[in-house]
């Protein structure tokens, strides 16, 4: 076994491993900042969340070591079994779990609480990867096209029954994988993305400015491709359609959306809302980030952070601590780290010779990206308040271990890039 383990350490992707460790460290430092109290400065105080986070990190490292040392066939061969096992656990939590803040997603064992939905992500990724890669070389029929959606939908529905909207939405991240593998066409993805983007923009900015922007873009692109007359025509039609859409957003918002859906969006647009509800969190988060300025207030110097003005700051709103104490420079560094990390994973995935490894790599990148985009977007008021953690940074054992498993299965697969199996 020894030579093989050495081999793994030599073959493992160093940049990815390095960024992983940096993110974990940034997380721990910022959790310490949110919870630390001048009177109790001992980092190894296991009654405080930063002390517990150290335990979670240790557990995550142990898990990573185990994944790296066991035969990867365990994951490739037993993908469906692992998936079905976690589906059963998700069902069990509905009956035997405990309710925390109206969400029935937790098992309590002694002092620790486990959130099975955090593990359902990697299980779903394994099953989805196994199914799609098993179709390689076969003609994809209509039935085969539907099954991946079912694999994603079952755990998503079970999580929805736990009343955990945030984690349910995470499963939509797998659509990016389906897009890459050709199960969803680019036009659908583009339209969906464009629609969401314009919807939010319209509520933020005056619609006439956006229509002017669209017109400007259409003219610019038309000038560039002016020789292809047909395409210019198509572009103009598209521009007109988008303008009509933008104009209709206000109408949809006022007349079509349900009250609670509207509320989540109004919080984004306008903080003249119930200051005890999610709007309060968002406003406090924005004050914390805004007060960071360009260089930040410095480690352990953030007053909004220290005075506990931002609720749930060590979990879902950890980014506000980074924003306050490390300023624009620090938050940009964290965003860049995530971008490099996720892009690196995609590039590694594309290098894989086996379809399984490639698809799984996309699963990892998509899930991490979704969490990053929604969590960060939420704290800076670009995305509705949806409670999901920032990978490797937010406080919490289940998410830390869950993301670590997801990442290291891929890193392990990557070490075997040159082998065929």
């Amino acid at each position, binding site marked *: 076994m020894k030579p093989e383990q050495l081999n793994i350490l030599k073959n493992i992707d160093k940049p990815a491993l390095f960024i992983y460790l940096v993110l974990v460290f940034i997380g721990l430092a910022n959790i310490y900042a949110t919870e630390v*109290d*001048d*009177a109790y400065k001992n980092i190894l105080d296991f009654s405080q969340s930063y002390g517990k986070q150290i335990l979670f990190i240790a557990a995550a490292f142990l898990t990573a070591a185990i994944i790296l040392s066991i035969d990867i066939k365990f994951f490739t061969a037993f993908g469906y079994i692992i998936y079905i096992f976690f589906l059963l656990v998700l069902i069990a939590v509905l009956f035997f779990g405990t309710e925390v803040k109206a969400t029935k997603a937790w098992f309590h064992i002694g002092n620790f609480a486990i959130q099975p939905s955090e593990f359902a992500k990697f299980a779903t990724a394994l099953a989805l990867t196994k199914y799609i890669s098993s179709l*390689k*070389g076969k003609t994809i029929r209509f039935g085969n096209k539907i099954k991946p959606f079912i694999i994603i939908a079952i755990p998503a529905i079970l999580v929805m029954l736990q009343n955990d909207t945030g984690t349910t939405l995470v499963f939509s991240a797998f659509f*990016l994988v389906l*897009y*890459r*593998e*050709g199960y969803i066409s*680019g036009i659908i*993805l583009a339209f969906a*993305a464009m629609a969401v983007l314009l919807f939010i923009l319209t509520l933020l900015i005056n619609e006439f400015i956006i229509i002017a922007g669209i017109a400007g873009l259409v003219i610019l692109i038309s000038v560039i491709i002016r020789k292809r007359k047909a395409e210019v025509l198509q572009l103009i039609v598209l521009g007109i359609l988008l303008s009509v859409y933008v104009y209709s957003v206000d109408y949809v918002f006022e007349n079509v959306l349900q009250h609670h859906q509207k509320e989540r969006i109004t919080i984004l647009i306008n903080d*003249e809302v119930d*200051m005890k509800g999610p709007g309060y969190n968002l406003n406090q988060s*924005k*004050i914390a*980030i*805004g*007060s*960071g*300025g*360009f260089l930040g*207030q410095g480690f352990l110097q953030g*007053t*909004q952070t*220290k*005075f*506990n*003005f931002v609720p749930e700051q060590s979990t879902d709103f950890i980014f506000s601590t980074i*924003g306050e104490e490390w*300023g*624009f420079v620090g*938050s*940009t560094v964290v*965003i*860049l780290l*995530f*971008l490099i990390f*996720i*892009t690196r994973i*995609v590039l590694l995935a*594309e290098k894989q010779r086996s*379809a399984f490894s*490639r698809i799984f790599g*996309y699963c990892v*990148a998509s899930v991490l*990206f979704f969490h990053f*985009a929604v969590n*960060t*977007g939420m704290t*800076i*008021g*670009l995305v509705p308040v949806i409670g999901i953690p920032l990978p490797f940074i937010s406080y919490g054992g289940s998410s830390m271990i869950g993301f670590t498993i997801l990442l290291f299965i891929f890193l392990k697969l990557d070490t075997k890039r040159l082998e065929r199996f």
Partner: protein
Amino acid sequence: MTQINQQTNAYLNRKFIIIAIFLVTGLIFVARLFFLQVVDPSYKLSASKNILRYITDYPARGLIYDRNGELLVYNEPFYDLMVIPGQVRDIDTTEFCGLMGITRDFFDRRMKQAKEYSLYRGSVFVRQISKNSYAYIQEKLHKFPGFYVQPRTLRNYTYPVAAHTFGYVGEAGPGIINNNPYYKAGDYIGISGIEKHYEEQLRGEKGVRIKVVDVLSREIGSHQRGRFDTVPTAGKDLYTTLDINLQLYGERLMQNKIGSIVAIEPSTGEILALVSSPSYDPNLLVGRARTQIYRKLQRDTLNPIFNRALMAQYPPGSVFKVVNTLIGLQENVVQPGTRLSCPGYYSSRGITVRCRNHPSPIDLIESIKYSCNTYASILFRNVIEQDDFENIKESFTNWRNYLTSFGLGNVFDNDLPYALSGLIATSDYYDRIYGTNGWRSLTVLSLGIGQGELGTTPLQLANIAATIANRGYYITPHVVKAIGNPDSINTKYNEKNQTAVDKEHFNVMAEAMFQVVEEGTGRFSRIEDIEMAGKTGTVQNPHGENHSAFIAFAPKDDPKIAISVIIENSGYGATWAAPLASLMIEKYLTGEVNRKWFEQRIVEANFINPENQ
């Protein structure tokens, strides 16, 4: 090239689009952060490290009035000196201690406690600073960063009476704070009496002001021009049914006695006076010293905190004969004209009940007038031994149902918390002791004269008097008539609770009770020009001197007041409870008492330390 690679290549370009999505998202985020952190000043508090402070505006707690609009309970403002330990720096401790009038030791202790609670949240440092010292301290407070003043109010009582009815207000404990988001550490909540029952109406709604303060904890201004501030709503006032003059008089009469007085207006169920003696001054259970004094009161062997009017359970003694006789009439085992002879005792199969000397034979009205035990025993046996019932279990249950229709054995669903239900044994209880059907009417004979397995509270006894005054029904006795303004009548308590006995029998009983006072056991307490109806009782007390008991109502034909009086360890009902009740009635109906020597005798009586008399 294999088929796999061709298939993959078909979508290979999509990786660029995916990476583009990542990068665009990142770009938007960075742009947004630049806007939030560098461009937009509205979220910036950074320059001088300003922080927000939440100051709670406590609403004024509702006031409490008596039935004639006299103010009984009001609020007095006071100020808590609060500290945020994390903001305390470089202060002159000696000067501070001098200003506050505290010792260095107190300062260190409080600071330690506050740090243990939280470095960044406010704790009470010095409780209840008076208005005068507040003005003085406020001027100098800027020298002591980390300290600020939180205004609150304290309860104040016009008269030192009715402590049990009002109850008291205290700091909400951890159990309440954890279960009810409205309450925060240091908040006050009604803990007993009507302060507890009407807590939600009395407390109002808190408001909050968000202030921006600098490092020296000086207020710079409102956060976002007060956009998120809320205004407190004052609590609602309570208009009680108490007559404060009667309450004061009752407490005066009950001095140096253990027991209680409950006076009710029969037509409305409104409680006019509720006295439990010994009592305490409600002004004692207020403010800084509350916990300490409460503990002291708890240790007092006479237990002044115990509300005897609602919680003491006595066998009713002869007072109970009015209920049993009404049941006998309704069951038709006896008629007003039924005459029985009394040899001075009642005896059957080895069981003897003694009676006192009185004329014989007597009819039903005379049996009440003289409180004849023989008549009561025969009547009770006839009720229990009726042929219509298959066994004693059924006939006993039938009898018991009458009692519950009088409100006995249950707690009234009213606005006085912590009342007890009293006790009426069930047939199952006797089955368990004597075996099924192993008991007879003779076994439970003592119930016929109000002794044995019976417990009634003074409130229940007063309600029996009110029921007879109303000739057959009662309205749930209560102490609050209106909430918010005097005209918004509390409609929760206006339903007539009918007893299972017909009105005609109550007319007989009212006449009998009138006779008790005119020329029977209660004649000593007769009031000139007032037609009072009553019934004496002497409660056997195995632990010492008997308890004196009396129920009454007046005037007989248009009752305005019904009353129960119990004086523990004082002897015969006719000697102490009846005179006291007659004074209360005289006071309430005429506004003053003419029988001064009579009054003086009661006021001076001392049954707590009899040798002081």
